[in-house]
């Protein structure tokens, strides 16, 4: 962390002992969004939100899981400074939805959506203009009938069709003794222009989050699975080799058992070693894992305590019981060049051992670790949070926040800058790689942004979080720098050329061609 921080001084001048706290304005009431994730026991987990552009205007729509209520797509009609959404009849109005992730499955340039349910999962083909059509049969996708709760996607080397991982939770038919009844996780591999029958990933330990990630920059992703220890017996967090026959990493490779109430995975390079680090949400202490002994071993150490990122109990509101963390994202919300951390919190239901009034966290990265600023930033929601998104909703280049809540309305906050009048934070870039042919969004690739000697590297992933994720503009904070060098490392390992881009712009990054400013 220290080396990273020293390097960062060249980026974010002057270096701030205390990170700049961005101001968020709660625009829920006027946003047009009125949606709750509803339900009892069977919908105590999940409840995510997916952010993606299906209208073609460059602004992300929001799709909310509904539990016992119909899922809902909200079309983004925001203008800079004003968040505005309208309900969109789209073909996505399924019930029993727990989560959703956008993915251009057939690489036709129109975003599709994978919808997880307590019941049959769905792949929904995007038709354009935010219309969707069930594609399970057309693409050979066996949606099963489980309580699905986790998702990740990647393109394996040379593949023209994605590989999907779907994690599931408890056998929902078990009433008196559900513990130990974790149902199978499934791996869907390509078969022509569709999917082969799913491969069971055994053992399964009640997954609540999954992420394909190239943790050691080997050129081939592995599959991290975060599992809920409440329900497994003999289980642990998992890391799978994504081979012809997937196999688990074991102790001989450095992988150490970790038993947490694993609920969400967020990933970014926090310590500046250019390898992805992983934030794992749980109950009480959250975990922040970095490589313990270099990329030769799949061994991670928890650095959350030292960096002030445990987020283990409410920091405001007077309820001192331990917290319950769900969705997490590592993004730079104050554009200072340090990744910040957004954690959506909320009691599972009414567990007396855990906080009822459990504010969401906004932990700002700084020169001594993370500093809590959720209350000062105005985003310390006490609702029973589940899903979330850190995404620019109004196209002004600043990252806004979304919280999807259980049995309570979803919330949106607009990032107004360093004050309510819109004074700027740092500089930023919004980048969108574009690959020809399959895997148009370069999932599994990397974007590198260089200012001076320091490089920020971000893996392009689909998965993680709690019940939802996003595809769209990739945001980088630049601090005081008015330009940065940018390149893409494509999923096939090809390294794009460095090119200098002026700050505060949206750029498409076509493979093999210069960046195109929007």
């Amino acid at each position, binding site marked *: 962390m220290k080396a990273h921080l020293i390097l960062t001084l060249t980026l974010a001048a002057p270096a701030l002992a205390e990170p700049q706290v961005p101001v968020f304005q709660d625009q829920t009431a006027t946003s047009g969004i009125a949606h709750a994730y509803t339900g009892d*026991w069977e919908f105590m987990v999940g409840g995510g939100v997916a952010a993606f552009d299906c209208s073609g205007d460059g602004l992300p729509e929001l799709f909310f899981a509904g539990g016992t209520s119909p899922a809902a797509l909200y079309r983004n009609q925001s203008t800079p400074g004003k968040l505005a959404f309208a309900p969109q009849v789209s073909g996505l109005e399924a019930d029993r939805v727990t989560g959703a992730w956008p993915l251009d499955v057939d690489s036709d340039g129109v975003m599709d959506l994978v919808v997880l349910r307590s019941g049959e999962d769905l792949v929904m083909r995007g038709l354009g203009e935010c219309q969707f059509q069930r594609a399970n049969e057309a693409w050979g996708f066996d949606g099963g009938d489980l309580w699905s709760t986790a998702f990740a996607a990647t393109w394996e080397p040379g593949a023209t069709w994605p590989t999907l991982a779907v994690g599931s939770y408890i056998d929902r038919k078990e009433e008196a003794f559900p513990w130990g009844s974790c149902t199978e996780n499934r791996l869907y591999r390509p078969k022509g222009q569709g999917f082969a029958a799913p491969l069971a990933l055994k053992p399964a330990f009640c997954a609540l989050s999954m992420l394909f990630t190239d943790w050691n920059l080997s050129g081939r992703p592995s599959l991290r699975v975060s599992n809920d220890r409440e329900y497994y017996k003999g289980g642990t967090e998992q890391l799978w080799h994504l081979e012809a026959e997937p196999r688990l990493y074991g102790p001989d490779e450095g992988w150490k058992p970790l038993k947490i109430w694993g609920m969400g995975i967020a990933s970014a390079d926090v310590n500046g070693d250019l390898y992805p680090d992983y934030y794992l949400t749980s109950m009480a*202490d959250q975990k922040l894992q970095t490589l313990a002994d270099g990329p030769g071993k799949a061994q991670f150490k928890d650095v959350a305590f030292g960096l002030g990122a445990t987020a283990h109990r409410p920091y405001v509101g007077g309820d*001192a019981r331990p917290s319950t963390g769900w969705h997490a994202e590592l993004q730079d919300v104050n554009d200072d060049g340090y990744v910040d951390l957004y954690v959506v919190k909320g009691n599972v239901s*009414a567990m007396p051992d855990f906080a009822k009034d459990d504010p969401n966290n906004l932990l700002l990265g700084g020169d001594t670790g993370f500093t809590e600023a959720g209350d000062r930033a105005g985003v310390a929601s006490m609702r029973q949070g589940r899903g979330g998104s850190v995404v620019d909703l109004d196209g002004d280049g600043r990252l806004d926040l979304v919280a999807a809540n259980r049995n309570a309305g979803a919330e949106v906050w607009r990032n107004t800058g360093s004050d309510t009048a819109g004074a700027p934070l740092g500089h930023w870039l919004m980048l969108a790689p574009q690959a020809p042919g399959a895997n148009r969004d370069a999932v599994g690739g990397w974007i590198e942004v260089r200012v001076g000697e320091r490089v920020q590297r971000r893996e392009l992933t689909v998965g993680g979080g709690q019940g939802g994720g996003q595809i769209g503009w990739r945001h980088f904070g630049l601090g005081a720098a008015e330009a940065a060098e940018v390149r893409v490392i494509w999923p096939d390992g090809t390294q794009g050329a460095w090119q200098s881009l002026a700050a505060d712009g949206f750029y498409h990054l076509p493979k093999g061609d210069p960046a195109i400013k929007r």
Partner: protein
Amino acid sequence: MQRRSFLTGSVALAVLSLTATARAATRDEAAAKVLSSWYRLALELVRHTATMTPPVASRALALLGVGAYEALVPDGRGLVTLAGQLNGLTTLPDRAPGQGYDTAVVLNGALETLVAALFSNTGPTGQRAMAAMTAKMAEQAAEGVAADVVAASRSVGAGLGAALLDWAATDGGAVIANQGFPMSWAPKGTPGEWVPTSKIALQQAPLLPDWGRNRPFAMPALTDMVALPCGIADPTPYSEDPGSAFHTEALEVYDTAKALTQDQTHIARFWSDDAMLTWTPPGHWVAILLQVAEERGLDLTARVEALARMGIGQADAFIACWAAKYRFNTVRPITYIQKVIDKAWTPLLNTPPFPEYPSGHSVQSAAGARVLTALFGPDYAFADQSPTPDGVPPRSFASFQAAADEAGISRLYGGIHFRPAIVEGAKLGACVGGFAVNLRTRA
């Protein structure tokens, strides 16, 4: 004619008697099913309720044991009430004379009431499981029983459970805040004192520092956690000097950990009994009892008697152990070894977040062995089938004492205790277990 009539009457009485006996046996079978079902659920709830750290779990299992036992006392089985024998338990509710009661329904009413209260902090899945069990057991226990008897029996059982909860409300263990961890903790800075051993924020204070002030069940009450009724030797004086006794003890832990055999590793993991991942140490010994009771075909009366003794022995063991732990407040091996011997050293097991001396496993396992030995004899060989984390296979023992000894030494193999904590802890546990063994349960 008179003789024939007499014989006919005798036969009729005999038939009636046999019928009554058969019915009683059937009701005992129903009650045994109630007992085993609620205990199975209770052990799962121990694992799945955040409040249920080992001391708290021991209290819950003790109250369940006393409840199951007392539910059967008025049945004319020759059992003697524990009221008047357990600290602070002076009386229990009387039953209305002339009213028929059903053993299974009374027992179910008591256990249902106790489980609901003792595990009220469990999450939505535990709540759902308790509701399902309540409905299922109410139906099963009442099968073939007249409605008025069911109503009266359930009321009596619930009343018993409520009375026991009232009694327990003042024992010091009824309210657990912040999962047992104080909101703040200020070390005194004394060399050799316990300090936090993990980077878990919640565990920067030690678990339940006042648990040793709780009112024991059968053991005499402690005074300010100092006057332990069984006594315990002082721990080895702290020293960082090479060649000192303390340094030598630390070296033993360090050297053992560096050369662990496969069997030692297996032993350490088998007995790890981690909170929130297993049934915890008291649950482990209750599970051993339930297994042996099944193997031996113990009748219902003997089962509740054994469960009461085991629960009480475990609860008192934790109170005595915690009193000693916070009296001495000693450092864990990880702290000492990393400071004095090898800063990169880590033990096989996660170090529990409370002081080292004496070893909790040693105290409570010795107490458990004392209870089981009194019930089943000193040479009862068994294979412990209790579910273990990570699929660790069962282990076989020549006696309960052998199992307790292994549980104790497992903590040295796991790198979380020095040897004196194990040796002296076992002595303390055996003594404390004697109070449960010496309770009078038969007329």
